[in-house]
């Protein structure tokens, strides 16, 4: 496990974020740092506020309080457009695909390639899509079909391709493997490792403890809108994390696992 590269500034700092809907505090004073080449698992029950926190970073939601810094500079993220301009890409659980459009149109949606006179450059978008998708899934066909006719795995591949094609610095993945079979899940795991090696920061929202322990460097656990624990993955066991998720606290006899090992020596 690589140590947190403290010399570098964090890619993202979310500082004291608050979001409430009426009287409900969905996110209650949560802060989060993400460093280059780091995978941070964002965990919690449904309704714990983790999706809300992610939506704030991706520009889909505007917080009531708190600030966000990207590369150390204060970022004003008003909508998904702003977030993408800052290199923040999101793979949504719902995939966020326009069903009637084909794969290239979805991949380039909102950032269409154009010819010199401003027409859509569909030929270029198609060839680029072929290039990107071949890397992720060599069997990919049906590029001209509306994506509604594709399988869940193919749709997921398009959503992933869309996030990594452009100059991604910070990748938010919301349950990226929920709709996938085993081999595709393994593909996503490999992809995460590759992106991490390239210095991209990844926030992984997942319920799958196996994925979390396999892929994450760190976890942040949310419960009822609060950050109830942020730990390096080697300091906690699955039981510790489950205790944080369910009860909002660590087991009473918890000591960091890495120190525990040291004590044994």
């Amino acid at each position: 496990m690589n140590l947190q590269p403290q010399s570098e500034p964090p890619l993202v700092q979310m500082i004291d974020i608050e979001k409430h809907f009426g009287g409900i505090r969905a996110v209650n004073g949560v802060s989060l740092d993400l460093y280059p080449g780091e995978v941070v698992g964002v965990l919690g029950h449904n309704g714990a506020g983790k999706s809300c926190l992610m939506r704030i970073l991706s520009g889909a939601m505007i917080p009531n309080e708190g600030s966000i810094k990207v590369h150390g500079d204060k970022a004003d993220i008003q909508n998904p457009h702003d977030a993408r301009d800052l290199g923040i890409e999101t793979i949504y659980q719902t995939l966020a695909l326009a069903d009637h459009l084909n794969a290239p149109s979805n991949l380039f949606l909102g950032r269409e390639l154009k010819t010199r006179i401003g027409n859509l450059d569909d030929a270029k978008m198609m060839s680029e899509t072929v290039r990107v998708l071949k890397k992720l899934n060599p069997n990919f066909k049906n590029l001209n079909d509306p994506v509604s006719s594709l399988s869940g795995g193919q749709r997921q591949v398009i959503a992933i391709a869309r996030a990594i094609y452009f100059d991604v610095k910070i990748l938010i993945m919301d349950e990226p493997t929920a709709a996938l079979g085993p081999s595709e899940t393994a593909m996503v795991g490999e992809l995460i490792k590759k992106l991490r090696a390239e210095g991209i920061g990844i926030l992984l929202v997942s319920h799958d403890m196996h994925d979390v322990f396999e892929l994450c460097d760190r976890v942040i656990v949310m419960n009822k809108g609060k950050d109830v624990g942020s730990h390096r993955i080697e300091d906690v066991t699955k039981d510790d994390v489950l205790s944080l998720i369910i009860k909002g606290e660590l087991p009473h006899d918890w000591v960091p696992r890495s120190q525990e090992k040291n004590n044994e020596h």
Partner: protein
Amino acid sequence: MADLDRGAVPASWTFKPSAASFHKLTALLTLALLIFAFSFGNDAFFTVNNGLTVLLQTSVIGLLGIGMTLVILTRGIDLSVGSVLALSGVMTGLSVKAGIPVAPAMTIGVLTGAACGLVNGFVITKMRITPFVATLGMMLIARGLALQLTGAAPISRLGESFGALGNGSLLRIVEKTGGIFPKVVFPGIPYPVILLAIVAFVAAYLLNRRQTGRHIYATGSNEEAARLSGVLVDRTKMIAYTLSGALAGLAGNVLMSRLVTVQPNEGVMYELDAIAAAVIGGASLMGGVGNISGTMIGAFIIGVLRNGLNMAGVSAFIQQIVIGVIVILAVYVDQVRNRR
């Protein structure tokens, strides 16, 4: 893995026509069938003159239908086009009466339509009123304004040049015979038909080749996905409604020019013809599906049907029934095919 379900399908299967092109084919066949049937019924139907009459009669619905298609593609509806058509005509008429030359006066009319559309877009996107209610409101407002401004009386004596757009034609060939009336060799292509062709071409270009068009489809297909992808959904909808309003204004000018009189109560229920044209042409009210060529076919099906039934002496009431049945059949055929 991902391709298992598709891989089992034989390769030839992929050559099946897409849902959209299948629908268009059906609609085209229907149109051809109608023309064929009416030609048998009446010798005067399949003539150049009558063909041009149908084109002329269809141009107003065609213009409204194009605007309606843009709006329906965003999963919206514009019930105000019939009233906006009247208000735009009234504004043009009043401008001419105020001494403004016809061309700028007509521009004022079109801009009035665009302004109504912009208000529709604003109410829908910023005030978050559903398109049905927002444009229903505008339908009443625009009609009320048109009637109020004119005292519900027609504006006439607008001068000969006011009628040029609706009654003039290109390439008209006449032969001097020495008699009182010259012999008309070719009646010419009416200006409204040329206008419709240009607008249809530009709208199809917008939808197929421009980013705005792509965003219109995306917004109607999955608004949330479009928004999350960075599409400025509100702006896209504003553009669609504004264009629909402007085209209603243009249609108003064409219609009033043809009558050489401004009628503040013209265009009642035209929005329904426009919706019917789009739906017969394969547009889905659920958004994201439809195109201009389909809507043109739909408009001509309605136009040919009206004209043919008129020539066959069928009453206007029966015509309504027939068109109503066709709208339902068109949607039914589409659904049966999609369910498969």
